[in-house]
């Protein structure tokens, strides 16, 4: 039997063709299966290898005339658990799925005991000789068996419980780093879980002996024979697999997409995107998110993300638990997250866990990798725009480490090399730095500290200098209590975003303008495990906002600009939350959460009070009310439900439903379609109410071919209230009476999202299609506050059809190619419907808002990747990436605009990348 187990490794569908073409005629009546097989051996060159007990004794009948072995066997085993493989040399191996492990047959264990490590490696080496794709599943089955038997817990006399909880940490045995997204599967029931960013896992296992398989990308798949006598802990030390080049696919959450009770969740692992074509050589995890259903932006090069028909300000970007306000560089062309230090991002676009709040549409939870606690390591990338270096070093071996990543533009060469004189005098540069310290204080205490700073500088006209920066620091302390059923995390964070404009013209209007927002949050999150079925998260958080909405100062004595400071705004946002992940049965699980959020706009402040039922303007101002420091100006708040449920129809097919509602107390002021660095954040106050949203979602999740394909179909319907919009021509910056320019309206969005992912094999990738609509309604009794007659109209980012294909093909271990194709309906625009003469000049008359659309968007990118050699002893591992962005040279319009020049109207369309852009990036790791 050993022979067969090793051989299964080589199995491929391709091989079946070799002898499969032999035509066989056979007929039998009321024969046992084994006899039929023996007959087959007689009349053909095939030899069968099997375990007798697998074969059914029921009599079979059949008549096959000139059929292939394939056809005969398929029919023969149709109603059995038996799979077959036809080998090159005519050997046919029968296997029985799952059942092997269910009973843990004696021969199996003996076999494993005999194996040595070389036996594991050999077949993998051969793999390339056979030109076979990687069959992770088979590899797992065949090569790695249970590593001895582990007994968990002391056997109680009272063995009343049927299930016990196994928990622990998974670490890379070489680097000591936690392994995130490691899938732990209970073989037999296919019940499973995956590890979090700290490598922590929890899995409920039936009492008695169990086989648990641990697998993750780049990690050697391992099985453990665990005998559960009680709840207990098992820390896993796992080896890197020979597939350590890691760029193929993520295998981690193999079943979690089906099992997870939460709807609308997307996870992206940085390794997963390594080969995706790049823009100007920058790997960008958030840009990859755009290829997944439900996440889009206004257009190429636009900053800001629209999640399920929401505005760009409705996303909570967390970098190691601290808010990052503007995660973009260079107007959104690049994201401000360093791709080498980022571990992964989890995007909650449907049901947001109750511990998060404050934004309507989504949470982008970005985590930074922990540093290497074993040895010094680093990674360097050289691209056309930026250079990037990441270093990791242990501080106390196996206990603490420090990781630092820095990235910066080389120079302004792109601008300098341009033909346009105006732009040659411009400059633009950016950099970001991130540092993370992680410390395992003892068995029960972990500490993580992250600091981050990013900055952009640019000067486009000779008389202005512009810069913006993000700064954040976060601290997290995890404590596991004695009974190991309670884990507490204390999180403190502070984030700031600021921008500054200096204008030095020649009139009396020279000025220096600044904006800043600062928030400090303290959060306590508890996780408790009650019994075998409940995992309860609860806690509370408090956040203090301080906004300096703008100050303008004269730049020189001649300037007639008065020093103007829009008064500081302050707000307090607090929340308590509770959620229970309740596994009712193997098939049915619930995630029920409740959050109560409370917001208070704090003084000192002067608030303008306007007449009720009248348009807000200077004329309807009733009084200006003064508030003292820390006096509550206005309070808002309410309960937020976070509910989702999963029902498994079969282990790899589930249906999920979700409902959630959210409040948002902070809003961006932006009259741009896209997010822009000059967008300012405004707190809710007496005149501006919080935004609210309600979403229901329904999803179907199915895995095929043993997890090789993941297919999901999700739908949602969302309503929102008090969405911000503006009167036409509103002046948003430095406006002391901003509320007179703001409109608050209703939003409505719905969509259907289809995603199929192929996770393994030479060809992998995904295909997503979304049909989604998003509408806004701005209605009022007053003409100037009503848009489009007060009816629903498509929002700026309403793009009904959105298709993305990301495909990755691995030619050999060292060479791979990828392609990325995107198609989207053009976004709505307000189009000119004619011209008119006014004041002796011609002007354009516009249609109702967003009545027309710009042309559809499509783009194809290609890239080719080459890994350095695979020698074990070498200084560094290198990686080349050649990308061509926009291969088709499609001139995708970014915007359409109209200009009156000399009394004549001209229409223009601008695009960002109208020609194919090739780039080369070189990375090396040491």
């Amino acid at each position, binding site marked *: 039997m050993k022979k067969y187990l090793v051989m299964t490794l080589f199995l491929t569908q391709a091989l079946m063709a070799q002898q499969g073409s032999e035509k066989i005629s056979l007929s039998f009546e009321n024969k046992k299966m084994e006899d039929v097989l023996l007959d087959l051996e007689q009349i053909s060159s095939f030899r069968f290898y099997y375990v007798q007990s697998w074969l059914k004794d029921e009599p079979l009948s059949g008549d096959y005339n000139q059929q292939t072995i394939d056809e005969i066997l398929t029919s023969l085993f149709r109603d059995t658990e038996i799979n077959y493989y036809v080998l090159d040399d005519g050997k046919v191996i029968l296997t029985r799925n799952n059942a092997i492990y269910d009973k843990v047959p004696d021969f199996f264990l003996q076999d494993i005991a005999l194996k040595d490590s070389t036996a594991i490696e050999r077949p993998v080496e051969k793999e390339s000789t056979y030109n076979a794709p990687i069959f992770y599943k088979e590899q797992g089955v065949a090569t790695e068996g249970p590593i001895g038997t582990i007994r968990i817990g002391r056997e109680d006399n009272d063995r009343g419980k049927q299930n016990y909880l196994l928990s622990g940490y998974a670490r890379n045995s070489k680097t000591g780093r936690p392994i995130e997204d490691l899938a732990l599967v209970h073989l037999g029931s296919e019940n499973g879980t995956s590890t979090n960013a700290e490598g922590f896992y929890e899995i409920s296992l039936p009492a008695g002996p169990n086989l648990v398989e641990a697998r993750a990308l780049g990690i050697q798949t391992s099985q453990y024979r665990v005998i559960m006598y009680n709840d207990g802990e098992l820390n896993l030390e796992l080896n890197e697999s020979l597939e350590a080049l890691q760029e193929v696919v993520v295998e981690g959450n193999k079943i979690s997409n089906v099992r997870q009770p939460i709807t609308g969740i997307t996870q992206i692992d940085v390794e997963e995107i390594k080969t995706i074509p790049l823009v100007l050589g920058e790997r960008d995890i958030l840009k990859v998110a755009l290829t997944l259903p439900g996440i889009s932006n206004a257009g190429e090069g636009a900053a800001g993300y629209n999640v399920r028909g929401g505005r760009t300000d409705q996303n909570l970007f967390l970098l190691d638990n601290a808010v990052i306000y503007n995660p973009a560089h260079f*107007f959104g062309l690049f994201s401000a997250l360093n791709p080498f230090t980022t571990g992964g991002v989890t995007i909650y676009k449907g049901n947001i866990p109750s511990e998060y709040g404050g934004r309507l549409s989504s949470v982008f939870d970005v985590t930074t990798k922990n540093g290497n606690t074993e040895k010094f390591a680093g990674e360097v990338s050289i691209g056309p725009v930026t250079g990037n270096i990441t270093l990791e070093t242990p501080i106390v071996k196996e206990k603490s480490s420090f990781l630092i990543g820095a990235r910066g533009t080389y120079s302004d060469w792109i601008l300098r090399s341009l033909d346009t004189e*105006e732009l040659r005098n411009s400059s633009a540069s950016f950099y970001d730095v991130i540092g993370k310290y992680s410390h395992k204080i003892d068995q029960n205490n972990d500490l993580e500290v992250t600091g981050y700073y990013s900055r952009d500088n640019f000067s486009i006209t000779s008389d202005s200098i512009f810069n913006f920066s993000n700064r954040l620091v976060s601290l997290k302390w995890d404590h596991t209590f004695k009974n190991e059923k309670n884990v507490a995390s204390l999180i403190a964070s502070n984030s700031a975003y600021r921008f500054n404009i200096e204008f030095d013209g020649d009139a009396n209007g020279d000025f220096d303008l600044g904006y800043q927002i600062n928030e400090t949050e303290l959060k306590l999150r508890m996780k408790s495990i009650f019994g075998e079925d409940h995992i309860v998260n609860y806690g509370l958080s408090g956040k203090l906002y301080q906004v300096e909405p703008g100050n303008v100062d004269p730049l020189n004595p001649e300037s007639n600009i008065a020093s103007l400071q829009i008064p500081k705004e302050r707000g307090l946002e607090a929340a308590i939350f509770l959620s229970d992940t309740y596994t009712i049965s193997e098939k049915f699980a619930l995630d029920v959460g409740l959050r109560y959020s409370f917001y208070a706009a704090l003084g000192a402040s002067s608030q303008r009070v306007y007449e009720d039922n009248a348009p807000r303007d200077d004329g309807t101002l009733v009084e200006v009310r003064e508030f003292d420091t820390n006096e509550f100006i206005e309070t808002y708040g309410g309960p937020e439900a976070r509910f989702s449920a999963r029902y498994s129809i079969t282990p790899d097919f589930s249906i999920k439903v979700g409902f959630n509602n959210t409040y948002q107390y902070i809003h961006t002021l932006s009259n741009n379609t896209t997010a822009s660095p*000059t967008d300012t954040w405004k707190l809710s106050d007496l005149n501006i109410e919080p935004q609210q949203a309600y979403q229901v979602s329904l999803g179907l999740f199915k895995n095929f071919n043993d997890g090789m394909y993941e297919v999901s179909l999700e739908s949602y319907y969302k309503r929102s209230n008090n969405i911000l919009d503006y009167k036409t021509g509103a002046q948003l910056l430095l406006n002391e009476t901003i509320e007179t320019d703001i409109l608050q309206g209703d939003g409505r969005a719905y969509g259907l999202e289809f995603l199929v992912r192929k996770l393994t094999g030479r060809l992998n990738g995904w295909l997503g299609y979304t049909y989604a609509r998003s509408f806004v309604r701005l209605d009022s009794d007053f003409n100037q506050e009503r848009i489009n007659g007060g009816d629903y109209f498509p929002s700026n980012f309403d793009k009904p059809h959105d298709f993305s294909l990301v495909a990755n093909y691995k030619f050999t271990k060292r060479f791979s190619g990828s392609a990325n194709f995107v198609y989207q309906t053009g976004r709505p625009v307000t189009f000119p419907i*004619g*011209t008119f003469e*006014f004041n002796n000049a011609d002007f354009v008359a516009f249609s109702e808002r967003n009545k027309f659309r710009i042309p559809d968007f499509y783009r194809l990118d290609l890239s080719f990747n080459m890994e350095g050699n695979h020698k074990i002893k070498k200084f560094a591992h290198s990686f080349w990436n050649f990308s061509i962005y926009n291969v088709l040279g499609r001139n995708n319009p970014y915007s359409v*605009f109209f200009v009156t020049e000399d009394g004549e109207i001209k229409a223009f369309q601008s695009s960002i*990348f109208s020609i194919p852009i090739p780039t080369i990036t070189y990375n090396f790791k040491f």
Partner: protein
Amino acid sequence: MPIKKTLGFSVLLLLLSGCVEEFIPETKNFESILVVEATLTNELKQQEIFLSRTRTFEDILPNKEENADVRVTDDSQNEFVFTETQPGKYVSDVSFEAVSGSSYQLEITTSNGRGYVSSPVLMGQSIEMQDVYAERITNQNNNEGMAIFVDSFDPTGNSRYYRYEYEETYRVIAPDWISSDLEGVPIPPFRLEQDCNVRISSEPRSPDKRICYPTDFPNNVIITTTKNFDEDRVQRFPVRFINRDNYIISHRYSVLVRQYVISPEAYDFFQTLQDFSETESVFSDTQPGQLFNNITSIADVDEPVLGYFEVASVNERRIFFNYDDFFPGEALPPYADPCNRVAPPLQDMETDCVLRPLIEAETFLYLQENFEPVNIEGPFIVVPRVCGDCTVLGTNELPEFWIE
């Protein structure tokens, strides 16, 4: 508005090999919309109101709104009726002035029977400009030339929003004016064959064609606000910049600057109008849409109407300067036309006339005889008409206000 200006960067993103292309939009779903242009001022005069309609991009001719009933009422129940004097131009039957503290309302009934009414607009106080002056400057685009600045100050701090208009009148001297003209040799009656000959006319060219005083009414929206300033003081506000190589300042130049004190709403309207016509920038896309205005259709509140009924105090000031005052001894700007000299032949190969029709159509004017014709050149050197006759550019009558 200085802040706006800063943000008015050109489209930055084109720097990444992108491009900005002009295209001709098609007018989609055209519906003609009434456009109202009405400014009542505190000048005692026959006030004027202009009505037109939007037209498609393909239409070139203005689309005037004719035969409408137009009247303005004030809050003392006075009614001022307007009568159409030219297509689309309506003039009040009597002279009147908008009085500070009174409010006015515009009512229009178009020839198709639809009624429109404005919201009542209050006439604010009037203030005087302190100064209008010209200076030789180099502007931020590194161009040298003349700037016309305005200073204004409202000690009460109530004005805050300003709109400017200007009209400029300038002396031009036709550089190639001479006292004689060419004419075709008269063709006797009943003679059929053509005669391509021209001769120097016995009638001299009028000296009135040498010096002219054209007047331009530029069409851009010029607004500013002192909203963000300590004092309600407009200082060195540039109303007009004239590049030094513009022929209009070659001799003597005069500009009349009119300052309107407008309401915040009117400011918003003009601001939006201005935004609509400016280059979009990365930082300040203007969300276009239907312009807010203070005129609505009585029958259908949702019917779009364009334009604005404005009631504003106006104040004007005229200044003059000579080129020599600021550019003493420096070369004059080039004339409006390069004035290339040509000597067309009398006849071409096909024996068709060449020079004679050009002279008779007054496309070219005589400059001098061509004593040494080369190749097929004709006997007379001529120049484009504008070089010898400035009335092409504007009137030759000395304006009444003109001061030397």
